């Protein structure tokens, strides 16, 4: 009889029980049904804040399986929750009995042999403008959760979305999170043993900044979450993106794979920070503000060293960048201008302190020269840099001035037929540039430099970069004299460039020994100047002139072959005449020499005029690309 009365009034009994245990809450219970021995089914269980009426907990339905033996032991057999919705807000903590989850190792007054939930929704919100709102879905299946306080339990959450009040978009989305904990840790120490994050995205922007800029000891420490600890947090595949909503802004994104240990929210906001954390960022790309397929910087690996306290104060202890590549092209300068204009737009006081980097190290860097379109040409320079106390206005607008040091070493570039032995050098990178000049200035010194068969020593190369191209100068010792030149590389389609080279007091004997060994030789010093016009690696036009200011000797060694092969069948007169002519032509002492030349690709004219005590020699060498008579330039005068 008693059982019948009880089973018919289960809903009222349940409401009464909730009111007794949670007096600050108001319970709405649809039905509590007794479905056979040992099984209670609850439909629609809702807990509201009695004062505000805010819904704090909703369970669409749930099963409770029990036996009387279990009940005598203050234990339930199984609790199965179907689609619970738990709203964690300040109101929830108001309705919970204080001290209910007290000392270490203590267990709740009631326990269950199994607690199961296949799909739950949790909302965490309402803790103030600088406290994030969190929504997640989760599932768990705990067996004997109360039998051993140290027994490891798990919970899997997914679709975790974290937002800042007042911001429509989530700044953090985590695909999946696996939590490991013990009842002793949770209830006694507020400690989660492990959190594994698999996939997700984090937006570093104003929303996160608002959370980080919140007072560390205000509302965040007013609720129990502030005191919780995570023994080990593993982040895997968390994509991070710097927020910038302007159409012309560059996108900065990277992936974080890292492990943080002994992470305490209260420590982060209070004791702060002594523990240094390292985040490795792989394959970071900064793209052009105008062309999402054009890179501006790529950073193969970046190690960020920081403390959580430092982050709260916009400080990174150190940044180490390995294998960065700077793509010097118009997009780099557009990016720099973009950053500069962004700085200029900032009127009024800054919202917070600027970002700072304690130490910056760059190793194994490379330069790639871009051009119109997306053609890229590597520059034979590796660099590294060290800098300290760098101020960053924010992470999207790097602002520093440092020198990237060119490392000494010998490098071969077969594609260019170039071998360079770098001595030293630096690449000065004022960014954003000073005096409204967006440039990148470098000067490199070479012990030796060899291009094809030509060599130079004690050479130097300097260059300035701007949005229209690269302008450079170079010099070096070669063949007893000195070479000096310059070039302008234009950021245009097909990479056009022009160059000029002058030589002073070049030893003709050594020089002709390289360009035409045994075939042609001159002695004495040579001064020359030439200009060239090229596209990429293809030299289209060359023009120049030369002169020998001092006396010398010319020898056309190639004529010795003809002399040796004068046919024996010729008459003595013909043989002698030919010999005399060839010998006259072969050797000549000159007091004055000069000439000019021009070539368009593989055709053109070289003129050489020599004057000496024994007359003059005037040569015109015409290089034809074919035997066509077309083209007035090649017709005989």
């Amino acid at each position, binding site marked *: 009889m008693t059982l019948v009365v009880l089973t018919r009034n289960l809903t009222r009994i349940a409401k009464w029980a909730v009111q007794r245990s949670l007096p600050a809450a108001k319970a709405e219970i649809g039905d509590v049904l007794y479905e056979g021995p040992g099984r209670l089914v609850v439909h629609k269980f809702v807990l509201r804040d009695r004062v505000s009426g805010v819904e704090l907990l909703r369970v669409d339905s749930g099963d409770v399986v029990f036996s009387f033996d279990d009940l005598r032991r203050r234990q339930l057999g199984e609790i199965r929750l179907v689609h619970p919705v738990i709203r964690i807000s300040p109101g929830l903590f108001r309705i919970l009995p204080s001290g209910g989850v007290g000392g270490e190792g203590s267990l709740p007054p009631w326990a269950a042999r199994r607690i199961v939930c296949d799909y739950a929704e949790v909302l965490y919100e309402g803790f103030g403008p600088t406290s994030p709102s969190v929504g997640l879905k989760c599932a768990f299946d705990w067996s004997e959760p109360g039998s051993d306080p140290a027994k490891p339990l798990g919970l899997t959450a997914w679709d975790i979305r974290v937002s800042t009040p007042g911001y429509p978009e989530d700044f953090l989305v985590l695909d999946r999170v696996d939590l490991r904990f013990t009842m002793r840790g949770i209830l006694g120490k507020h400690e989660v043993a492990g959190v594994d994050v698999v996939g997700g995205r984090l937006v570093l922007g104003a929303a996160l900044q608002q959370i980080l800029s919140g007072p560390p000891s205000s509302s965040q420490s007013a609720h129990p979450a502030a005191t919780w600890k995570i023994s080990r947090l593993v982040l895997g595949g968390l994509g991070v993106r710097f927020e910038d909503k302007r159409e012309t802004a560059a996108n900065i994104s990277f992936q974080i794979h890292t492990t943080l240990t002994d992470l305490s929210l209260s420590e982060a906001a209070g004791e702060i920070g002594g523990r240094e954390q390292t985040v490795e960022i792989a394959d970071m790309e900064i793209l052009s503000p105008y062309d999402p397929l054009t890179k501006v910087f790529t950073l193969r690996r970046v190690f960020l060293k920081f403390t959580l306290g430092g982050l709260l104060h916009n400080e990174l202890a150190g940044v180490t960048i390995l294998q960065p590549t700077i793509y010097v092209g118009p997009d780099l300068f557009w990016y720099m201008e973009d950053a500069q204009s962004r700085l200029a737009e900032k009127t009024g006081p800054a919202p917070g302190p600027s970002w700072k980097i304690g130490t910056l190290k760059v190793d194994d860097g490379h330069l790639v020269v871009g051009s119109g379109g997306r053609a890229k040409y590597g520059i034979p320079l590796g660099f590294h840099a060290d800098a300290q106390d760098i101020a960053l206005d924010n992470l999207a607008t790097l602002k520093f001035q440092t020198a990237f040091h060119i490392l000494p070493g010998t490098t071969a570039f077969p594609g260019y037929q170039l071998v360079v032995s770098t001595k030293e050098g630096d690449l000065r990178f004022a960014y954003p540039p000073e005096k409204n000049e967006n440039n990148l200035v470098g000067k490199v010194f070479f012990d030796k430099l060899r291009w094809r068969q030509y060599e130079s020593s004690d050479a130097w190369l300097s260059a300035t970069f701007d949005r229209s191209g690269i302008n450079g100068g170079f010099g070096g010792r070669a063949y007893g004299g000195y070479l000096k030149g310059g070039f*302008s590389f*234009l950021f*245009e*389609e097909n990479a*056009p460039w*022009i160059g*000029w080279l002058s030589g002073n007091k070049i030893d003709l004997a050594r020089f002709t020994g390289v360009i035409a060994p045994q075939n042609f030789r001159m002695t004495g010093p040579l001064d020359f100047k030439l*200009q060239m*016009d090229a596209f990429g690696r293809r030299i*289209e*036009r060359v*023009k120049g002139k030369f002169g020998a200011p001092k006396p010398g000797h010319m020898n056309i060694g190639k004529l010795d072959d003809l002399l040796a092969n004068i046919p024996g069948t010729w008459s*003595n*007169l013909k043989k*002698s*005449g030919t010999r*005399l*002519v060839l010998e*006259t*032509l072969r050797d000549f002492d000159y007091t004055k020499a000069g000439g000019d030349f*021009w070539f*368009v*690709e*593989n*055709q*053109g004219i070289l003129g050489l005029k020599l004057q000496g*005590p*024994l*007359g*003059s*020699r*005037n*040569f*015109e*060498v*015409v*290089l*034809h*690309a*074919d*035997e*066509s008579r*077309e*083209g*007035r*330039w*090649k017709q*005989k005068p």
Partner: protein
Amino acid sequence: METKTMKIFFPAATLALVSGCAAPTVNLSTAEPIKVDISMRLDVYDHNRQTGARSASPGPAGEPETRRRNRMADIQNFKNSRLVGEGRDGLLSIRVDTPGEVGEYVRKTVADENLDRMALMKAIAEKGQKSLPDVQAEQSSLWQKRSFEGELIETEAPDGTFSWTAKSGG
């Protein structure tokens, strides 16, 4: 393997040799060394690099680019002589009108060059969805930057007027 044919011409090489049979000894030495002036032209032909086949990577319009390459040496020759210059419209301009057959050749070559340049610039405008005058201005700037010292270019003065000058510096 490149095959090069060398043709050597000796237009000024006159020698007088006296052959002695018996008779009296003739002294051939001279009080002053004999001065010899030699002018020589050496034509070198590269058969493996045909002019028309050089355009391995044709430009946007293909054929105009090939034709342009074939006449580049002539154009360079005109530029060296300052017969033509790079105008502000991306086209070549005849600066010295030479009479006769030479002048006719210059005019025809420049006209052909400008036709091809215009075709290329139209293709660039279409590809980049730009106006033709903008492309002409860009190409003019590029041509002038690529000009050699001493070549004629049409430049804009600070007051907005244009004038022809020989490119300086370099």
